């Protein structure tokens, strides 16, 4: 398993990660080794096996009724945001 510099950059773009040159060097070395390591899964006979959906058999995702249960706490939550104005989260301009 080998990855080109372009491959690593492409994964970083998908993952929305800005990488430093040190990150690039480290990941270019370790990612191919990890992928080679996990490729031993290829030897397992899985033709007749369904991919596991849940650790407990027979469990399915529970749904709740579509009713309001939470009270408004946006002021409290926004105390953890870097940039807030008039109750809104600020981000750099998206539309010119």
């Amino acid at each position, binding site marked *: 398993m080998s990855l080109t510099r372009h491959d*690593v950059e492409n*994964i*970083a773009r*998908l*993952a*929305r*990660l*800005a*990488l*430093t040159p040190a*990150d690039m060097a*480290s*990941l270019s070395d*370790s*990612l191919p*080794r*990890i*992928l080679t*390591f*996990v*490729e*031993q*899964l*290829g030897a*397992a006979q*899985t033709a007749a*096996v*369904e*991919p*596991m*959906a*849940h*650790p*407990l058999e027979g*469990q399915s*995702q*529970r749904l*709740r009724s579509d009713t309001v249960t939470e009270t408004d*706490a946006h002021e*409290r*939550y926004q*105390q*953890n*945001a*870097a*940039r807030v104005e008039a109750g809104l*989260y600020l*981000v*750099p*301009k*998206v539309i010119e």
Partner: protein
Amino acid sequence: MHTLTLAELSNGIKSRRFSSVDVTRHFLDRIERLNPALNAFITVTADQALAQAAAADQAIAAGKGGPLTGVPIAHKDIFCTDGVLTTCASKMLSNFVSPYDATVVRKLKEAGVVMLGKTNMDEFAMGSSNETSWYGPVKNPWDLTRVPGGSSGGSAAAVAARIAPAATGTDTGGSIRQPAALTALTGVKPTYGRVSRYGMIAYASSLDQGGVLTLNAEDAALLLTAMSGFDERDSTSVDLPVPDYTATLNQPLKGLKVGILKEFFGQGLEASTESLVREALKVYEQLGATLVEVSLPNLPLSVPTYYVVAPAECSSNLSRFDGVRFGYSCDSPKDLLDLYTRSRGEGFGAEVKRRIMTGTYVLSAGYYDAYYIKAQKVRQLISDDFRRAFAQVDLLAGPTAPTTAFGLGAKVDDPITMYLNDIYTIGANLAGLPALSLPCGFSDGLPVGLQLIGPHFAEAKLLNAAHQYQQQTEWHKRVPAGYES
């Protein structure tokens, strides 16, 4: 006082031999004195702890206390705590004050438990040595040049050093059991769905489970009885009644069938660890258990399976960190993409980035079937192996970790060597099974752990088996040198 178990502290407080404030102050003093060398805590909540302790003393004076009223514990810094810094040991959350309590925290608070503070851990619980923390590595109280294990390394070091009587942890691939083994503690990972994940910062959601690190099985039983149970805020929480785990600790083990996991005694297992684990199994025979060898042929694939499934889930879970709503945000972003990529690039540490990248790759178009679907199929095979084994035996046994605690820095440069450290613990996470580690001896002064794995919801049986062993042995009572007084 600090060598007393949680059960003993609780009895002492209830019988008014000492107050919760006395106990809390004693542990806070120890934290102040001993934590600098260990780095086990990220945040100490002294004022809040003393206020909770005073309230507990009042409740007891009014005749209202329960089995945990007034006993102090520490929480792994992965659990959200209302109004208290909750970092997950990451620069990304180094400024995050949680606006709510995790269900585990809330339940223990309601039971009258006092919180001493928040413990150090591997960043976002990704690590097996507590060396990926943005707050620096934790030291093992049995040897300060060695790691305490991870990711719940701060919780393990704190309890082993008797600067906290017990602590919560989380276990995604062994993060409770492996540090418990490396520090001579009892560490329990319950069945998937038994303990609510609400407010427990997500790493790999189909594997993550909260649990405890304690001095013995009885303390674990006390805490788990209070922590477990259905929570409508966790969609994978299981709606089954929670037994009182302390009620069955004294059941005799006569007739118990214990499967010795053949795959856990092969290459890579340190000889001294193997002989101590085999000695421990003899104790089970003396207690009336029958030992049979059991083979789980797909188990050796658990580490590669995990290193596809866990990074995949991690890359998805950690996409919430965008520099906008909470957490680290980069300076002067030039556009939205720059805000996302630099906040994440600057906020996450090297191992977290590595797992996000691995996960992004295995989920990307063209590779999803070959890696992710394949791993989920092998996960099913491993789970089927366990199910077949539990048709024959009540519990499975083997070592928790292949070696004793390794030196700080020894494995940080090689992720695969580090990943293989969890070779015996990951299987239980993949299959959602309850498992625990308990101390079974020392090799060159370093603790060794015995692992027991049970079928789904067999926590009571596991704790019973651990407690019975601890009635015959004294390993769990040893205190590391320098921490006795």
